[in-house]
């Protein structure tokens, strides 16, 4: 059997001879290359691009590989939620809030319910059990949203494993959601003045088990990324936002705290029972993409802390406010008593009777400050409902932030912003 050789194989001496021939026959290189006409290139990124987390489109103007101008284009997921809200009762809008930040539907439900309850003037009269369960909902949603944010962020900068790893843990949150609300994704759990149902039996123990497991998962995620040379090189010093810019552009949530501003609506204006619970607000120092990542990691640990306190302190009692004009009365009484039947009928057909007036309620959502501005002229329907979505406002800084960065940094910066277009476009 003869020697196995590559088809293109040449003896080294023959290759050297061929190279010498080519060199002799080749024209001498020009003394000086003429200046190439340099032209800026316009690159369209998105709306269907894996790192845009939905349908964000950015038109980038490039000089070589450096961005000179960035024009974000949003609205590809615009569904007119604010218009829809003007045409239905307050309770009917709860399912639409699931579809805002669809990675944290429980937190949106709570934010919306609290806004309407503030308009009704009952946000301080909710039963304690309802308030504790709502805090649990918010913190579960925060962990779920951050796990996905980190997983996809790591995948965007090249680490596939983290995504699979964090999704294992999110699956457990979905299982908890399923047994709590009946749905894994579109929870619609809150009602005006309460919740759609109480905790199912054994749920607290399941949630405790989850708390023990997720802490391990967060630590493992950190070992994948925090000291990972590639991840650090891709994110440290990339997308630096100064304190002044962060405030001026109205950033909120982890993106604001990454720039070193210690502001959390749960601390600054405590709602529900956050003033009875102990937790810390992590802040960054440099304001780069790496700091925003660190803030999210620590926020998840604080959320677990909050979850454990709520589970230990969980009081007994009703979950709905005891006012048939606001929350639906229990079904067994509706079918047997006149007054409850009337309340049920009015509540379903006309909705709660809100006073005329206007309120704004800002809620610390996983992505930032989710605000609802409700302008009421009285009755069961808002005259105007404005959703101040954190993703929409956070993306406003991109035209300022992106120029000067390389094109591959866009992916790292977008990942560190952790936005959701369902909420941005509403």
């Amino acid at each position: 059997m003869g020697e196995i050789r590559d088809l293109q194989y040449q003896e080294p001496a023959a290759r050297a001879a061929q190279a010498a021939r080519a060199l002799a026959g080749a024209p001498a290189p020009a003394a000086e290359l003429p200046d190439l006409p340099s032209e800026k290139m316009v690159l369209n990124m998105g709306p269907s691009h894996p790192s845009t987390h939905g349908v964000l489109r950015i038109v980038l103007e490039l000089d070589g590989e450096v961005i000179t101008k960035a024009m974000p284009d949003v609205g590809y997921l615009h569904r007119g939620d604010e218009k829809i809200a003007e045409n239905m009762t307050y309770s009917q809008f709860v399912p639409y809030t699931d579809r805002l930040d669809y990675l944290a539907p429980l937190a949106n439900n709570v934010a919306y319910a609290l806004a309407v309850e503030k308009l009704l003037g009952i946000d301080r009269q909710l039963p304690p059990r309802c308030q504790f369960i709502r805090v649990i909902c918010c913190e579960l949603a925060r962990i779920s949203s951050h796990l996905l944010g980190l997983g996809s962020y790591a995948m965007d900068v090249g680490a596939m494993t983290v995504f699979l790893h964090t999704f294992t843990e999110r699956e457990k949150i979905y299982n908890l959601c399923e047994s709590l609300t009946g749905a894994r994704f579109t929870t619609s759990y809150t009602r005006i003045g309460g919740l759609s149902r109480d905790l199912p039996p054994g749920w607290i123990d399941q949630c405790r088990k989850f708390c023990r497991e997720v802490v391990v998962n967060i630590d493992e995620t950190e070992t994948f990324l925090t000291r990972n040379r590639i991840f650090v090189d891709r994110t440290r010093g990339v997308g630096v936002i100064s304190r002044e810019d962060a405030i001026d552009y109205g950033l909120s949530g982890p993106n604001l705290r990454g720039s070193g501003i210690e502001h959390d609506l749960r601390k600054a204006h405590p709602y529900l029972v956050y003033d009875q619970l102990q937790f810390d607000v992590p802040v960054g120092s440099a304001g780069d993409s790496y700091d925003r990542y660190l803030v999210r990691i620590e926020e998840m640990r604080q959320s677990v802390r909050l979850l454990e306190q709520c589970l230990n302190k969980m009081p007994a009692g009703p979950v709905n406010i005891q006012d048939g004009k606001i929350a639906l009365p229990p079904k067994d009484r509706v079918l047997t008593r006149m007054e409850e039947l009337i309340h049920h009928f009015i509540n379903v057909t006309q909705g709660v009777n809100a006073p005329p007036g206007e309120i704004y309620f800002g809620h610390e959502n996983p992505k930032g400050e989710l605000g609802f501005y409700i302008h009421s002229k009285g009755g069961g329907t808002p005259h105007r409902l404005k959703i101040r979505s954190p993703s929409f406002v956070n993306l406003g800084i991109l035209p300022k932030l992106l120029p000067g960065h390389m094109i591959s940094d866009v992916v790292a910066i977008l990942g560190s912003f952790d936005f959701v277009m369902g909420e941005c476009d509403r």
Partner: protein
Amino acid sequence: MTTSLELAERLRAKFPALISAPAEFRGEITLEVSDPEAIPEVCAFAKRELGFDYLVDITSVDHCGEDPRFTLAYHLYGYGHLCPLRLKLRLSEEKSELPTVTGVWRAADWHEREIYDMMGLRFRGHPDLRRILMWEGYPYFPLRKDFPLSGKPTRLPEVAFTEPAPLDGGPFVTIAGGKDTIAREPRARIPETDALEPRK
């Protein structure tokens, strides 16, 4: 500890002719600014002297059938004193224009574009007043109360077929602006006549 009410009174003391008495509802303080033209001046003072460094939101409300038709609400907040404040102003339909506050807070940029997009109010001096959620060239303002919930029929911009196809002169041709997708479909060209091959 400063309160929103104290800050509102200080703002009112600076502009006594412009600003109404503070109204309180559910613990929120609202001031009404009588002249829309003065809003950048009032906001600049609130930011510079009263520490309202964070613009939370700008919203417009349509009171169709009333005069003045529109209301704008500016939600201010200060990280130094943690006090929120709402400024309101009224705007008639004939005018539909007011000065921008992008010079005070950069965050106002996208909020004002959204109000222009949804309600059709123009902000004088805005650096880039384009539609933001709807597409460029959309003829209506969907959040106005006289716009029906079901929407109105509109032509979508035909991005792919408004210009000659890249293969113009090649073996396939397409007609820009054909009435439906079948008419716009690329077809084989008859080389001699430079016309389209008849449809089978």
